[in-house]
């Protein structure tokens, strides 16, 4: 059977599975819709969180990014996993004890302020929309490349599926489809990784093969890659080019941003008890770590394979996948010196080949000549990753609108049924907007991803921590902290990414910190401003101090 038929079958089967799960887990109340009735087991929630968190970017782009960045790619590996340690120890158990439906709800109650609530709603909606448009785009790309349908139709089909289970099932439907999607995506990621590990290192565990040796020559893969890099004029793979301070700040911003992302936080509202929330973060990170420790191995295998296959080889001898990806414009070759050979070197004046990083994972099975069903499986996995993340984000948007704005601020007397209907309508509305953003992506999607993490790091993280770990933090401090953190972070990113992109280079950055890493400074500023302002303004009411005492202790009569 050919690749296309396999892809149709595997994608079709996975979609049928998601729809079946969605019908089985419909939401009957707002409690079901927002937090899945708080009845999700810690293990299932861990899987759902892993699928929620691992987006099209993690599945499709990350290994490719790392294979081009080498050591510098570590910022993503540590940054997108280390945040879970903070989540497990500093946020999840206390937020679970508090027992809210949304993140803005905690901010609003703890800081006894509608202003704080509205600022939090605005941040949650902005962060989530930024993210979700990228997911829909990922769906479109997979459809167009593997099933040869138009990107627009791909996005429409993806919207249809998400619409079905997010609108019908809310958090409950999303949770159980995410569990199914995790299984699909991790299987799809690991199968080609096992094949590659055997081919390149002779052992089938990618994490070991990564440090293993070429079975024929006995040279360690990492040494071989460092050598190839030097020959072609690149920095050694294990060295990297970013400054230490920048790596430090980017990693910190991604960690703290991860811990502050609303769609990740709300997953821990869905388990029954505080102790479940703690251990559930552990399961989530374990499931994420399976992919995240495989990705750098895949990056090394892919990079070695690619250099072996293309560098210095005659263009005529390129295999079929090469021309297929050339058709999509993601690989381009320009024979500058006219010798018919592909020159792939670091020097842009002499280089003849450009390869889009995003295709590394998708093209890997073909580059390595794996069976056709593996290629189809990778397509199904990419879709599972994109759809599961999109659904989680859409829920944040819908609950921010129907619960935080409508129920808590505008129309407090709305009935349970009215609120559930409003939640469904806002979820439907969010799906459509996300789809439109996916079809006509604003040119700046890639640039605003730094925003999502920077804003989450500089807004939510400090106020939640201060709300739990101090009893004296007050409304004035929290609002001043959030506003100064966001304003500073946004100003820095907007200046370097939109107003003066020409200046976006290490020489002009403050202390050599790139816009990706500035969220760390924004977070520190938020903490400093909040603590200072709270010293000079009235202390919070006694009821809030009691609330803090209550959320610090899991159960009992405390």
């Amino acid at each position, binding site marked *: 059977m050919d690749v296309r038929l396999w892809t149709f079958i595997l994608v079709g089967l996975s979609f049928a599975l998601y729809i079946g799960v969605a019908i089985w887990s419909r939401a009957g109340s707002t409690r079901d819709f927002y937090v899945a009735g708080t009845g999700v087991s810690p293990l299932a929630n861990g899987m759902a969180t892993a699928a929620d968190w691992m987006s099209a970017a993690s599945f499709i782009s990350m290994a490719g990014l790392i294979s081009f960045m080498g050591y510098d790619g*570590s910022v993503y590996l540590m940054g997108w996993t280390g945040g879970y340690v903070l989540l*497990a120890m500093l946020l999840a158990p206390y937020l679970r004890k508090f027992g809210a439906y949304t993140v803005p709800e905690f901010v609003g109650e703890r800081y006894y302020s509608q202003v704080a609530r509205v600022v939090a709603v605005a941040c949650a909606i902005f962060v989530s929309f930024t993210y979700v448009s990228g997911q829909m785009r990922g769906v479109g790309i997979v459809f167009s490349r593997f099933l040869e349908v138009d990107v627009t139709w791909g996005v429409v089909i993806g919207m249809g599926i998400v619409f079905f289970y997010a609108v019908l099932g809310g958090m409950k439907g999303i949770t159980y489809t995410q569990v199914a999607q995790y299984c699909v995506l991790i299987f799809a990621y690991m199968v080609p990784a096992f094949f590659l590990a055997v081919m390149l290192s002779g052992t089938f565990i990618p994490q070991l093969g990564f440090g*293993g040796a070429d079975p024929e020559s006995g040279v360690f893969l990492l040494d071989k890659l460092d050598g190839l890099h030097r020959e072609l004029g690149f920095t050694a793979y294990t060295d990297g080019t970013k400054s230490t301070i920048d790596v430090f700040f980017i990693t910190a911003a991604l960690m703290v941003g991860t811990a502050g992302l609303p769609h990740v936080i709300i997953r821990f509202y869905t388990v029954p008890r505080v102790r479940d929330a*703690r251990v559930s973060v552990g399961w989530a990170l374990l499931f994420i770590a399976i992919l995240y*420790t495989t990705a750098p191995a895949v990056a090394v295998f892919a990079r070695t394979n690619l250099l072996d296959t293309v560098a210095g080889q005659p263009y005529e001898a390129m295999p079929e996948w090469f021309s297929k990806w050339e058709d999509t414009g993601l690989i381009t070759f320009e024979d500058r010196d006219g010798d018919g050979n592909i020159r792939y070197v670091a020097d842009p004046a002499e280089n003849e080949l450009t390869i889009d990083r995003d295709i590394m994972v998708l093209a890997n099975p073909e580059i390595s000549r794996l069976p056709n069903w593996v290629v189809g499986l990778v397509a199904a996995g990419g879709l599972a990753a994109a759809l599961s993340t999109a659904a989680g984000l859409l829920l944040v948007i819908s609950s921010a609108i129907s619960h935080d704005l409508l129920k808590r601020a505008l129309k407090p007397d709305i009935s349970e049924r009215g609120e559930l209907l409003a939640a469904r309508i806002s979820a439907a509305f969010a799906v459509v907007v996300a789809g439109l953003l996916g079809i006509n992506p604003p040119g700046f999607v890639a640039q605003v991803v730094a925003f999502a993490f920077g804003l989450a790091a500089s807004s939510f993280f400090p106020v939640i921590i201060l709300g739990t770990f101090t009893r004296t933090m007050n409304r004035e401090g929290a609002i001043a902290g959030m506003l100064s953190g966001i304003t500073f972070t946004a100003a820095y990113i907007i200046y370097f990414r939109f107003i003066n992109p020409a200046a976006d280079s290490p020489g002009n950055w403050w202390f050599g910190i790139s816009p990706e890493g500035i969220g760390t400074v924004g977070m520190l500023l938020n903490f400093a401003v909040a603590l200072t302002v709270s010293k000079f303004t009235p202390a919070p009411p006694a009821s809030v101090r009691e609330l803090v005492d209550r959320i610090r202790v899991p159960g009992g009569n405390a």
Partner: protein
Amino acid sequence: MPDPTAYWARNLRYLAILLAIWFAVSFGCGILFADALNAVRIPGTGFKLGFWFAQQGSIYVFVVLIFVYARLMNRLDREYGVAEE
């Protein structure tokens, strides 16, 4: 009735120790001292130590840290009689 302040102080002590390890493996071994550690290799593999911490080791330690914290806190909850049913 056990003292909630003491419960909280123990929690903070666990946090300080575990977060110090969290910082040491990632920001320490993986970033600040990565170059120095790269002089050492994990025997029998192609891994330079700093690089390994940055791309593998820190992640394994993170997973262990969370499960350790969950266990320590479950025990603490029982000790102070604040465990949930």
